[in-house]
C-alpha cells in the first residue's frame, strides 16, 4: 500500500493517510472504484454503507462483485473483495440505509471525510445536511454514461448540495394516461399502473374498469374480478383490451373533437392467440399476435409469483423478465389500439425502468478524481478542490476532465446551509392539510426525516410519537395557519432548520400544483401568469372536466430505493459552472418507481365553498364511472411541481434537445451511431431529457465561460 512505502507520499501526508477515518456512502459503480483506490493508497480506517444487494446488471462495472455474489449485500461483499488485495485495512461495512436514525451525528462525527457515491437525491441531501451539521468535509459525486462529476462540500466554504435547486420528476395528467395516450411513455405508465392494479400492493392507480360477475350483480374491482377468474390470461386480455376500450368508447363525448380515438382490435384475437416470441431479440419490434401471446404468458407466470409471495402482492421490478414482458406487451397492445408507435422491449425497459446508462471507465475516472480530491481535503487545501467534470467528448481545448475555476461560495439564500434562508410556501390554506404538509412538503420535497413543526410557538407536528397532536386531518385554516403565518421546521436528526412563510394562494387554473415553494414572496405572483393551452384540449372529459388527475413517476420509498433506484436523474446547472452538473450514479435507475397517481380537484375553488364543490362533484360522477374510486382521494391533493405546460414542451422538444446534445459536444463529430442506438434519449425519457435540457442551458454559458477561463490561465 502506498502509505507503507517511504517516499511515495510527502512525509506530512503519510500518517494522515494511515489514520484518517473515512466514510464511503454507497458501494455501487463509483463506490467500488473509490474503495479500491482508498485501500490501495493505504487508508487504514474505512467504513462503507450501502442498502443495496448485487444485481447482474451491476457486473459490467462494479468489479468487486461477481456472478456468485448476485443477491448479496454490496457493502459486505465489497469489503471482503478489497480485503483480498489488502488484508491490513480496518473496514467496517454496514448493510443499511444512511438515512436511518441510527446513523446520527455521533456516527458522522467519527469521520475526517465523507464520500458520497450515491444514486439518489434524497440520500444525497440527507448526507449533505449531516455533514454540514457536523462540519465534516464531504465529496459528492455522480456519473451518467460517459460523463460525471466530483464536487467538494464544506460548511461556510463551498456551495452545499442544496444551494442549487434540483429539478423534481415530471408529471403526466391521469386523463391522458387513462383516456388519451399520445406517446409510448403514456402507455408504459398505464401498463405499470395496470400491473399494480392487478398484482401490486397499492391499488390507487386504477386504469382498468370495474366488472360485474355473471352470477352476481355485484360490481368487482378489476383486481377482485381477476382473482375471481383465477387470473385467466385470455379473460384478462379480453377485459382489458376489448371491454375496457368499449367502455371508453361508450363514454359520452370522451373522444368528441379529439384527434385521438382508440380503434378496437380485430375480433380474431378475442380469445387470445399463440405466436412464438421467445427467440426474438430484445431490440426487435414484434407483431401484435406475439405481444398478445406475451401478455397472456406473462399473466400466467406472474400469477405463480403472486401465489408464492408471502406479502400477497408484488412490487414491479424492471429486472424481472415476466414483469417486464407484461409491461412491454401491455404497452404495445395499447399502442396499437391508440395508433401510437410500437417500441422494442429494449427501449420500453429503458423508459419503464428509468435506466441511466453506465460504463466502467467513467466510474473509474470519477473514482480516481474523488480520491485525489480526498487527499487535497485532508491536506487542508480546500481552495484546490474545485468541482471537476468528466465530459463524454473533448471540448474545443481537447479537455475531457475539466475543473471549475474556483470553489463556488455558498449561496446566501440557501435554506440548508445559510441561516438567513427562508422559504415561501404558497398553498390554498383552505384545502391544504397538515398531513399533506408533512408528507409532500417536508418529507418528499425537503427530505426531512424527523420533523418538529412550530407555528408561532405552537407545536403542530412532532417527531416524538408520544406527542399526540393529531392535527393531520385538519386543513391549514382549520389549524389556524393563515396567510402570513411563520412556520418553523426543525429536524433534530439532520440538525436542519428552515423557516417558512405561508402565502395563501387560490387556484386560478386547473393545472396549478397543490403547493409551491419560492425563495421570496415576489416570485409567488410571477407564477400566476401562465397559460394552459395543452390541457384545455387534453382533459375536458365530458361531464367530468372538473376532475383532473395527475400522475407522477415518483421516487421510490426508502427500501425500494435500494435497488439502484434514482429519482434523482437530473443535472443542475449553475451559472458559474462550466459543465453540466451530474448527480447521477451510472446505472442508476428509477426502477422501483412505484409510479403513483394522485388526484387533484382542480376546479376553481372559491374560498367559501370548497367542500361543497367536492361533494357536488362526487354526486355528479356517474355511479359506474371509472373515476368513482377516486372520490375519496379527491381531497388527497398532490403537488405538481413544474407547470403542466412545461411537461409538454419537454415531450415535444425531445427532438430539439437531441440536436442540442450534438451542439454541446462541440466541433467533434462522432456519436451518430451511439445516439442511434441510445434511443431512450429520443423517447421522452424524463431523465435524459432533463439532462439535455440542462445541457442546452449550459451551452449558453459555456462560451462565455471559455473566454473567461482562458484569460485566467
Amino acid at each position: 500500500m502506498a502509505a507503507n512505502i517511504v517516499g511515495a507520499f510527502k512525509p506530512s501526508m503519510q500518517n494522515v493517510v494511515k489514520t484518517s477515518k473515512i466514510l464511503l456512502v454507497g458501494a455501487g459503480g463509483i463506490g467500488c472504484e473509490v474503495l479500491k483506490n482508498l485501500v490501495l493508497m493505504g487508508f487504514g480506517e474505512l467504513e462503507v454503507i450501502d442498502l443495496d444487494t448485487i444485481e447482474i446488471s451491476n457486473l459490467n462495472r462494479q468489479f468487486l462483485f461477481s456472478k456468485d455474489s448476485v443477491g448479496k449485500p454490496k457493502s459486505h461483499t465489497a469489503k471482503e473483495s478489497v480485503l483480498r488485495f489488502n488484508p491490513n485495512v480496518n473496514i467496517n461495512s454496514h448493510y443499511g440505509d444512511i438515512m436511518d436514525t441510527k446513523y446520527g451525528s455521533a456516527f458522522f462525527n467519527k469521520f475526517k471525510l465523507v464520500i458520497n457515491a450515491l444514486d439518489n437525491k434524497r440520500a444525497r441531501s440527507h448526507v449533505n445536511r449531516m455533514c454540514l451539521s457536523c462540519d465534516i468535509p464531504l465529496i459528492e459525486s455522480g456519473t451518467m454514461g460517459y460523463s460525471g462529476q466530483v464536487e467538494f462540500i464544506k460548511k461556510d466554504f463551498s456551495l452545499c448540495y442544496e444551494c442549487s435547486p434540483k429539478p423534481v420528476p415530471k408529471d403526466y395528467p391521469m386523463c391522458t394516461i387513462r383516456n388519451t395516450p399520445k406517446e409510448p411513455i403514456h402507455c408504459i405508465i398505464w401498463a405499470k399502473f395496470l400491473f399494480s392494479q392487478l398484482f401490486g400492493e397499492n391499488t390507487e392507480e386504477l386504469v382498468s374498469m370495474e366488472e360485474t360477475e355473471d352470477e352476481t350483480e355485484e360490481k368487482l374491482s378489476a383486481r377482485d374480478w381477476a382473482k375471481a377468474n383465477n387470473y385467466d390470461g385470455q379473460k384478462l386480455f379480453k377485459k382489458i383490451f376489448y371491454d375496457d376500450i368499449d367502455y371508453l368508447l361508450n363514454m359520452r363525448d370522451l373522444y368528441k373533437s379529439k384527434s385521438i380515438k382508440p380503434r378496437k382490435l380485430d375480433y380474431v384475437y378475442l380469445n387470445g392467440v399463440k405466436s412464438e416470441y421467445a427467440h426474438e431479440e430484445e431490440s426487435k419490434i414484434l407483431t401484435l399476435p406475439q405481444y398478445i401471446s406475451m401478455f397472456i404468458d406473462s399473466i400466467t407466470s406472474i400469477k405463480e409469483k403472486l401465489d408464492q409471495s408471502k406479502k400477497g402482492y408484488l412490487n414491479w421490478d424492471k429486472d424481472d423478465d415476466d414483469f417486464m414482458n407484461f409491461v412491454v406487451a401491455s404497452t404495445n397492445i395499447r399502442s396499437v389500439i391508440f395508433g401510437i408507435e410500437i417500441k422494442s422491449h429494449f427501449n420500453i425497459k429503458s423508459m419503464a425502468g428509468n435506466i441511466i446508462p453506465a460504463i466502467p471507465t467513467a466510474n473509474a475516472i470519477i473514482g480516481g478524481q474523488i480520491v485525489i480530491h480526498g487527499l487535497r481535503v485532508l491536506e487542508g487545501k480546500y481552495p484546490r478542490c474545485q468541482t471537476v467534470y468528466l465530459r463524454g467528448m473533448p471540448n474545443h481545448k481537447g479537455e475531457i476532465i475539466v475543473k471549475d475555476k474556483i470553489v463556488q461560495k455558498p449561496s446566501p439564500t440557501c435554506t440548508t446551509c445559510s441561516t438567513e434562508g427562508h422559504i415561501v410556501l404558497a398553498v390554498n390554506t383552505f384545502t391544504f392539510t397538515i398531513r399533506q404538509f408533512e408528507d409532500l412538503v417536508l418529507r418528499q420535497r425537503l427530505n426531512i426525516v424527523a420533523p418538529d413543526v412550530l407555528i408561532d410557538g405552537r407545536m403542530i407536528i412532532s417527531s416524538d410519537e408520544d406527542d399526540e397532536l393529531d392535527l393531520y386531518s385538519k386543513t391549514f385554516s382549520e389549524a389556524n395557519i393563515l396567510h402570513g403565518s411563520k412556520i418553523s421546521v426543525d429536524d433534530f436528526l439532520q440538525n436542519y432548520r428552515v423557516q417558512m412563510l405561508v402565502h395563501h394562494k387560490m387556484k386560478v387554473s386547473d393545472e396549478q400544483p397543490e403547493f409551491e415553494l419560492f425563495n421570496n414572496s415576489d416570485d409567488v405572483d410571477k407564477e400566476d401568469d401562465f397559460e394552459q393551452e395543452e390541457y384545455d384540449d387534453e382533459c375536458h372529459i365530458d361531464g367530468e372536466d372538473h376532475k383532473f388527475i395527475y400522475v407522477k413517476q415518483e421516487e421510490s420509498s426508502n427500501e425500494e430505493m435500494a435497488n439502484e433506484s434514482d429519482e434523482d436523474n437530473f443535472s443542475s446547472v449553475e451559472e458559474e459552472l462550466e459543465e453540466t452538473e451530474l448527480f447521477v450514479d451510472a446505472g442508476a435507475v428509477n426502477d422501483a418507481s412505484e409510479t403513483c397517481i394522485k388526484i387533484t380537484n382542480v376546479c376553481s375553488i372559491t374560498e367559501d365553498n370548497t367542500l361543497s364543490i367536492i361533494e357536488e362533484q362526487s354526486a355528479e360522477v356517474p355511479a359506474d364511472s371509472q373515476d368513482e374510486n377516486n372520490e375519496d382521494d379527491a381531497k388527497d391533493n398532490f403537488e405538481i411541481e413544474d407547470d403542466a405546460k412545461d411537461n409538454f414542451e419537454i415531450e415535444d422538444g425531445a427532438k430539439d434537445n437531441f440536436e442540442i446534445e450534438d451542439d454541446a459536444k462541440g466541433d467533434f463529430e462522432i456519436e451518430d451511431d451511439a445516439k442511434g442506438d441510445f434511443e431512450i434519449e429520443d423517447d421522452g425519457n424524463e431523465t435524459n431529457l432533463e439532462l439535455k435540457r440542462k445541457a442546452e442551458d449550459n451551452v449558453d454559458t459555456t462560451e462565455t465561460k471559455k473566454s473567461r477561463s482562458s484569460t485566467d490561465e
Partner: protein
Amino acid sequence: MDSEITNNGGDVGKLSKDELKVYDRQIRLWGHDGQKKLSSWNVLLIGMQGLGAEIAKNLILSGVHSITLKDDTNISILDRCSQFLIPPDSEERNRAKASLANAQKLNPNVTVTADIKSIEEEEEDFVSKFDVVIATECFPAIYRKINENCRKHKVNLYIADVFGFFGYFVQDVTFEHNLYHEIFPNYDQRSNVSENRPLPYYLTSALLRFQCESNRKPVPDNCEKDIAELKSIISSFEHITNIETYDEYLGELFCEMSPTTSIIGAAVAQAAMNTIMDRTIDNFNVFFYDHVEHRGQYFKL
C-alpha cells in the same frame, strides 16, 4: 473479423442472453452494434503493473473478445500501490501470471491469457495478431520500436504510463500523426524540446529522459536525488523559465498511484473502445492527466 462469441456458444454475431444482461447498462450507451464490435476484438496489453491492471479491468468488464496480458517481469513491492489483480500472498512471481486468475474472474465471457515473453524478443509481425496493442511500463526505445511495428502493420496502438499521480498516453490509430519518438524527440539526447508546449509535455519529456539516463523510473526510496535529477533535466530545456511551478509535481511522481492509474487506465481503455466502435477522437494523439490542475486534456503533438 466476425463477431462470434466463443465462450457462450451463441450464434455468430449475436450476444448471449447472459451477456445482454451483464452488458445491459453499457449497451444502452453504445448500442448492440457497439457491443458486438467490442466482443470481436483482440487486445494485446503489455505491462501488468498498476496501470496495466486498470486497463485490463476496464476492457475485460466491457467485454472485448480476448486480451493477452504480456509481462516478463516479476512482482515488486511497489505494485501494491495500485496492482489490485495480484493477491498479496501470490506464489506466482511473474506479473502477468499472477494477475491472470483475478483478471479472468472479472468476466468469464472474455478470453484472458498470460504471456511472459518479453516484447523485445517477439518477431516484428507479432503485433499483427491483434486489433489493438496497449503498451505500458516499457522504456522509450521499446515504445519507439513497438510504434514503428504497429504503424507498419496498421495495428491500433496506445502507449500509456503513470508516474505517481501524473500520467499520459499516446494514441496512434489513424497512422498519420507523429510517431512516439517524434512526439518526444529528446528522450535519448539532451536536445531541445519544442516551444509553447503545455507543462505536462515538458514533465513527460523529462521523465522519459530520466528513464533513459538512469535505466529506471524515479523511485520513492531515492526520491530526493531523483527529484534533483529531474529538476536539472527540466532546467536544461531551453524554453523553461518557471522551474518552481514544477516543484509540486516533482514531489508526487513516485510509484503508480491508484487514483491516477484509475484515471489513465480508464481514459486509455475508453479511447481504445472508442476506436473499436468507430468513434475515435482522431484529431488528437496525446493525452495528459495533470493531477495538480485536475485536468485531462488531449493534444495534437
